[in-house]
């Protein structure tokens, strides 16, 4: 522009509607009403403020898969916290005289080989499974997303090193690794099992987190914040993490189901949880020998396990559908 004087008078031949560009004074009364009227009449979408999360929640509530799986999980969490709510008995009180007996009044699922009530044991077994599942997922997700996220953000040798390390852990056969690892650490309690699952589970999360961060990092809004002088912390926590977290949540939810199954597998093999801990894996293991003459002993803990794993995987699926921007 040649000078910074006032705008030239409008061309009289031209029909110039009053337009927002004419507003010169910021926050002036008249100017404000003009700007407001423009924005009001032209509001492109509905007035509700909606973020991706509220959109996702809106979708989820209408998804029957989510509703069913969420109800099952809610129920499982409740009985894991307070098994006494629906099973008043003690799972460790057994009566050998009733070993392998079928259902009886007050004992709807019958008795196992030790004469313990299968119903009580199945209900109490939820606690071990849910605890291992949640703790292992939390651990793996925390470790994986921090390591993977940093690798994706900083790149370079740190990324190369981490990716190779993750490959090493990916290469460990899970059952063999479990047998070796858990037989050398003093086991019996939940924590070695949780630790082992975290150890093998984090690379999967790290890969997802790394990829997600690499994608988000390239967005212009991250560049814009960088151009404003934002530091690494702000970029990571405020701009990258909230936008990169969705795929991690999806994978973590699905992983939770598989971790529960993994705990049962390890307990079945005798290296996971051990009696007197009550666990579906242990019960399945001891019942499997008697499958011919007392199938009910296997049916109930195995059924509970399948439903639990399925519920978490369904939940993960529903969450993915809701969070995947490509589907909207």
């Amino acid at each position, binding site marked *: 522009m040649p000078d910074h004087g006032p*705008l*030239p008078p409008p061309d009289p031949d*031209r*029909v*110039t*509607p*009053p*337009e*927002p*560009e004419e507003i010169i004074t910021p926050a002036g009364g008249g100017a404000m009403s003009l700007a407001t009227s*423009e924005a009001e*009449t*032209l*509001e*492109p*979408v*509905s007035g509700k403020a909606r973020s991706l999360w509220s959109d996702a929640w*809106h979708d989820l509530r209408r998804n029957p898969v989510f509703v069913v799986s969420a109800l099952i999980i809610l129920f499982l969490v409740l009985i894991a916290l307070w098994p006494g709510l629906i099973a008043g008995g003690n799972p460790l009180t057994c009566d050998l005289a009733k070993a392998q007996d079928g259902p009886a009044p007050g004992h709807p699922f019958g008795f196992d080989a030790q004469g313990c009530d299968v119903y009580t044991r199945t209900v109490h077994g939820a606690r071990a499974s849910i605890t291992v599942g949640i703790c292992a997922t939390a651990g793996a997700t925390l470790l994986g997303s921090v390591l993977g996220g940093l690798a994706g953000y900083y790149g370079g040798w740190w990324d190369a090193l981490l990716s190779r390390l993750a490959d090493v852990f990916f290469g460990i056969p899970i059952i063999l690794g479990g047998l070796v690892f858990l037989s050398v650490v003093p086991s019996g309690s939940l924590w070695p099992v949780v630790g082992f699952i975290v150890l093998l589970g984090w690379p999967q999360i790290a890969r997802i987190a790394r990829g997600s961060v690499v994608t988000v990092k390239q967005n212009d809004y991250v560049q814009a914040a960088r151009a404003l002088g934002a530091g690494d912390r702000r970029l990571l926590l405020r701009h990258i993490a909230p936008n990169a977290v969705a795929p991690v949540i999806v994978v973590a939810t699905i992983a939770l189901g598989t971790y529960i199954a993994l705990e049962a597998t390890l307990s079945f093999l005798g290296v996971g949880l051990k009696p007197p801990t009550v666990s579906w894996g242990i019960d399945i293991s001891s019942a499997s020998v008697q499958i011919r003459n007392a199938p009910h002993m296997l049916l109930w803990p195995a059924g509970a396990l399948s439903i639990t794993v399925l519920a978490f995987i369904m939940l993960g699926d529903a969450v993915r559908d809701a969070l995947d921007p490509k589907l909207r």
Partner: protein
Amino acid sequence: MPQQHHEHRPDPHRPDPHRPDPHRPDPHRPVLLDVRDLQVEFRTRDGVAKAVNGVSYSVDAGETLAVLGESGSGKSVTAQAVMGIVDSPPGFVTGGQVFFRGQDLLTMAPETRRRLRGAKLAMIFQDALSALNPVLSVGTQLSEMFMVHEDMTRKDSRAKAVELMERVRIPAAKDRVNDYPHQFSGGMRQRIMIAMALALEPDLIIADEPTTALDVTVQAQVMDLLAELRREYDMGLILITHDLGVVADVADKIAVMYAGRIVETAPVRELYAAPAHPYTRGLLDSIPRLDRKGEQLYAIKGLPPNLTAIPPGCPFNPRCPRAQDICRTDRPPLFPVAPGRTSACHFWKETLDEGQR
């Protein structure tokens, strides 16, 4: 600039003498493509978006129609409905007819229609890189068309692929036939897309923003190529674009779309000389000029309407400098302005008179 009257009259100095007359009468055969009162809606969570609300246009062999509009005007959805590739759900064609050589595509058996697609009707997309398969060489993708549709042998179809690539002026076609899409530049990829569309010598090509992703110097080349091939093959061509400048050289007539409706149709020269709809006029005036600096740009105020809540009356009325009460209540039909020209504005006469540019 000589004053032009809006009455249609033959122009003594057409820029291109080879161009066939767009209005040539031929009573013996039906027009190539005749879209009548087409309606398409998208059923989304936010409501029903009326993307196309009664669009009618026709294209004959050897004719080029440019469909001009901004994003959300329904220009691409109309073309997708003609091709039968509207994503459904959420998109549904809820009314109208699409006659291709006199047959209604919308009521045709899906299998018959599928066979027409590609062979008789072809489409060119904006983004050639994503429209071509990245793991197959361009030669394979081109020759596949002949092997599948015309039962040619591998060798013959390969030769035909090279011939096609030469046709769209790809230098050293013989050496490049085994290259993959990413090895070509943007302009060359667009040529390959055009070659694929041409392969089966279709009667009608719909090009959806064919040059938008290209640089200016390449844009001109691709546009010229399209115009030339259209002449050579005597095809009908529909050019969908948001850029009036791009089509000015090659189109015979233009249909301007706004909020899912056609608001003005006219031969290109007349549209430029004197638009008969305030929206068209606003668009023309808001383009900065290359030959002169000018002061402030004319800006159409506001934004295109939300398609789930199109304003009553004329959809352009909230943004229109001419809007009167009638515009807010009565939807203007397409008024005949001159032979070959229509405008959906209650005040087309005033717009036209004022608009002698």
